[in-house]
């Protein structure tokens, strides 16, 4: 008994001695994404062995659950030391406007990140004279996936513009393909809308939409809605019952010809479905967007009132470093936000995406939180649903404009 007590006492003493600092990291990376986060934590522990890292993961796709927990904690006055958020307006429109985040411009300057990250990305992370989060990875949203063997059999090629897409769609329908395009539940339809809109407006036109230079009621945007409606006519009717994986399955098994999805689909095709890029599945920028990289990124920010500010800053420093990003991204299936990453660590698809990342014009994704705050995005889903049912482009554009005004876009 005495011995046990002694051991316990010794343990507590060493425990407190070694934990000179503490760091709590809040994210929604669990399951498949867990190992990537673990790699980062391991690296952090190598550099700062005295710090006890508390991995506070709240699982749930796209962070729906984590965001609700985060809100409770922030409003309750116990923010985590650093938390995951989609880079861009999702953070800015929610937490930065509420004056709850620390400006990280100093960190960007001292680490030389102004040059390591593409200029367009810094632009997306900036607002109100500050830079608000450190992007650790990048995904591309505007990719069109197809089944090369099937396209050959049908005698069509991957279309380059949306007009061409509609012709291809008619050809395929004539050949008995019921749904040339496959879409899934609501957010994947928004995802498609975004690609159609960028393909219609162009990269600059898309950016103008979010700075308020172009209104949603602009004839060009209405035209984009009309095109989206025609594109949806090419799609499957059971969309809202499908997850994005089930939608991707229909490309793999050749029931549908095309699918617009982010590049996590590459991971799904190669890892889960055991398909080879370029033979088992094909990819190309979505129609009208070649030369444009529609990005979304996971990033970490520093909330005001974080208990372990120094440790959190060290964490951010690691996430933005070349070593950190190259440890994380090959495991996560994304590419590094830095332009100087070690491409030998990545697979075929990621290498092609990384090459585009350096060359292309970069714009932010709507549905993944880069260009619009949550208040817009979440309600915009209903606008898309209503549009798909009514096909009233004018009405949808007017509703979107009202939403934009309400969410303070372009102010």
């Amino acid at each position, binding site marked *: 008994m005495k011995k046990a007590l002694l051991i316990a006492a010794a343990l507590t003493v060493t425990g407190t001695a070694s934990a000179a600092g503490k760091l709590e990291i809040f994210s929604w990376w669990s399951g498949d994404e867990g190992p990537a986060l673990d790699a980062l934590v391991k690296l952090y522990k190598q550099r700062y062995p005295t710090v006890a890292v508390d991995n506070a993961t709240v699982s749930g796709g796209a962070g*729906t659950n984590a*965001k*609700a927990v985060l*809100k409770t904690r*922030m*409003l309750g006055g116990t923010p985590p030391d650093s938390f995951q958020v989609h880079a861009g307006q999702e953070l800015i*429109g*929610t*937490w930065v*406007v*509420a*004056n*709850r985040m620390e400006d990280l411009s100093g960190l960007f300057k001292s680490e030389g990140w102004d040059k390591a990250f593409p200029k367009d990305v810094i632009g997306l992370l900036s607002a109100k004279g500050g830079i608000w989060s450190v992007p650790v990875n990048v995904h591309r949203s505007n990719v069109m996936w197809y089944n090369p063997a099937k396209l050959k059999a049908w005698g069509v090629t991957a279309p380059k513009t949306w007009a061409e897409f509609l012709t291809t769609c008619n050809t395929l329908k004539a050949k008995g393909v019921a749904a040339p395009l496959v879409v899934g*539940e*609501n*957010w994947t339809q928004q995802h498609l809308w975004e690609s159609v809109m960028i393909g219609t407006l162009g990269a600059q036109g898309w950016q103008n939409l979010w700075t308020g230079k172009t209104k949603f009621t602009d004839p060009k945007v209405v035209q984009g809605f009309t095109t989206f409606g025609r594109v949806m006519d090419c799609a499957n*009717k*059971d*969309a*809202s*019952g*499908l997850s994005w994986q089930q939608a991707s399955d229909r490309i793999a098994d050749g029931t549908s010809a095309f699918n617009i999805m982010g590049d996590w689909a590459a991971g799904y095709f190669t890892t889960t479905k055991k398909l080879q890029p370029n033979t088992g599945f094909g990819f190309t920028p979505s129609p009208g967007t070649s030369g444009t990289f529609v990005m979304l990124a996971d990033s970490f920010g520093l909330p005001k009132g974080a208990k372990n500010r120094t440790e959190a800053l060290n964490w951010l420093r690691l996430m933005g470093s070349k070593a950190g990003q190259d440890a994380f991204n090959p495991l996560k299936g994304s590419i590094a936000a830095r332009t100087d990453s070690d491409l030998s660590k990545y697979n075929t698809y990621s290498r092609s995406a990384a090459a585009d990342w350096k060359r292309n014009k970069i714009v932010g994704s709507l549905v993944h939180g880069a260009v619009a*705050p*949550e*208040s817009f995005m*979440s*309600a915009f*889903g*209903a*606008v898309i*649903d*209503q549009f*798909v*049912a009514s096909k009233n482009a004018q*009405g949808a554009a*007017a*509703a979107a404009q*009202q*939403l934009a005004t*309400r*969410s*303070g876009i372009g102010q």
Partner: protein
Amino acid sequence: MKGLSRDRLWSIAVLLPSILLLAVFVYGFIARTVYVSLTDWGNDPAQALALDPIIRWVGLANYQELFTGFLQGRFRQELVNTIFFTLFFILGCLGLGLGLALVLDRNPRGEGLWRTIFLFPMSLSFIVTGTIWRWMLQPQGGVNQFPNAVGLPAGQFSWLSSTDAVWKFDWNALPLITASVVGLVLILLAVRAARAGDRTRAIVSGLCAALLLGWALFIGPNVRLLPAPELHGFNLALIGIIIAAVWQMSGYTMALYLAGLRGIPEELREAAKVDGASDFGMYRHVIFPLLAPITLSAMIILGHISLKIFDLVYAMTGPDNTYTSVPALNMYLTSFRQNQFALGAAIGTILLILVAFVIVPYLTSSFRGEEGHA
């Protein structure tokens, strides 16, 4: 000195904690929610999550927004969904539950086993039920594959993802429809009262009905809630959800009805038989009237479940499918994803009022009943 007796002090001491907790965590929070619903908290994103938000009083603006706002079509569809869902859910549960109870009441073999089997779904949570039924109602699998087993082509009905609707009506006609329905009910009441010889009651209801119907005929058509027509109807995708909900809860109504049937004294049945009642006649004139109170309490329980349903819909069609959405889901999304706390509170308050419509009449009648017995 009754007020200070030991028993009394004890009872107060024992009850006090729960009374306090109820006062704060139920009634206090209801009051707080109603207050928030009358403010603009969250309408300005910069103030929504600020450390010390500026919150202004805006009166009923949030409610006006919900019922007539251009952007809130989703909420209106949800109200219509709720009404259809409640209707079919209650009818389904009552019908199936009564049917099962009648079968079991004839003492079939293995009755205990059947009872357990039918009651079993109730022990699951709606999340589990929803997940199971979502698998079964997949467009290319489950139920749609059944015809394959007998060599027929697979079914094509998209149970949970259909976007078609039937019985569509224009939201602008809502005041008209409501006034007409209430007016007709009042006329019915007036006729009944007149038959029963209650003259004042008949006259009052008759006058109210005339007023309402007059309004519906002459002023109603000119009231326009929305600038453009907005069609709402019964979305076919709801059928899948209703099936799952009925599957889950009909065992419960079966148990209620079975208890009721067993509670009917054998003498009554025998008396009816002696009087020459056929089987059907006995059910029609003796047994069903005795089951009426059970039907009422089952309707109350099922009614409030269906009005506040959230998890089943979330599990079956996800939070973002506006065709099958319900107000509780929208309340969650509005408050915790869009950070529009005031608007979310307004939806919550509307839900509370809807549930109150079901519960309060029941409570008053049962209170009265208790007093009558005392």
